[in-house]
């Protein structure tokens, strides 16, 4: 049955992951299975995947002082104590996905999204994640929690 004709399965799903690059793929598979069982459209599922990937990689890369110039950041040992908890809520008219960490403060809602707006020879590769998160979600909220950060992105439809 086409996704557009399937009845949305409402519910709540939650799972914790380590702040490690290999865990991003695990989280992506988990979100994909939820999207399928909840009857989300392909576009909604893909948008969730984009936001999940960018939010988690930001935490893995920057959560504990790693810098982007460090090519070893994915396997750096400084993230051992960092945990990322993903919570997904499916409602009749929208889906929300919260990404909560115990990393240093970073308000993604105030970060300026970068897109490619320079000629190739002047372009610094990278840094497009914030722009993609804001483009592929219909709303974004940030909360500073007692132990870290919580970012909630919303998807309409």
């Amino acid at each position: 049955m086409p996704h557009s004709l399937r009845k949305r399965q409402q519910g709540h799903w939650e799972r914790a992951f380590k702040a490690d690059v290999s865990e991003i793929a695990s989280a992506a598979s988990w979100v994909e299975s939820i999207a399928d069982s909840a009857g989300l459209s392909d576009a909604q599922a893909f948008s969730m995947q984009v936001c999940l990937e960018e939010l988690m990689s930001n935490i893995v890369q920057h959560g504990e002082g790693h810098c982007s110039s460090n090519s070893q950041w994915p396997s750096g040992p400084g993230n051992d104590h960092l945990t990322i908890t993903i919570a997904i809520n499916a409602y009749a008219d929208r889906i929300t996905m919260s990404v909560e960490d115990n990393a240093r403060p970073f308000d993604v809602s105030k970060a300026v999204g970068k897109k490619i707006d320079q000629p190739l020879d002047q372009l610094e590769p990278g840094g497009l994640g914030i722009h993609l998160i804001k483009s592929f979600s219909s709303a974004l909220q940030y909360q500073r929690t007692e132990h870290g950060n919580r970012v909630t992105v919303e998807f309409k439809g």
Partner: protein
Amino acid sequence: MRLSVTPLENGITKISLSGRLDVQSAIEIDDEFTKIAKENKNLLVDLAEVTFIASLGIRTLVIGAKATANNGGKMVLLNPQPNVEQVLRTSHIDSVMPITHDAATVAKMFGR
């Protein structure tokens, strides 16, 4: 993520990617992709089998395009799937490397 290289006519080299071009894959293929880009002038990157792309994957493409430009050539992206193309165009990558679904006109895009 799988990566394969095919020499075409007219001095064009095709890189075919397959799978998810996510953070982990981008890290895995970065060195090889950049090496191929540095060794070639005109690169056609076939994205038909790529099911997902993240900002780190776009970074890989941009680094490759800069390398081909340094060789006096260019990079062209071929046949991205609709969701992947949406990510590419949202990032405005098409302002620095063309995206096409018409393989027949690729040679002209490279000025051949």
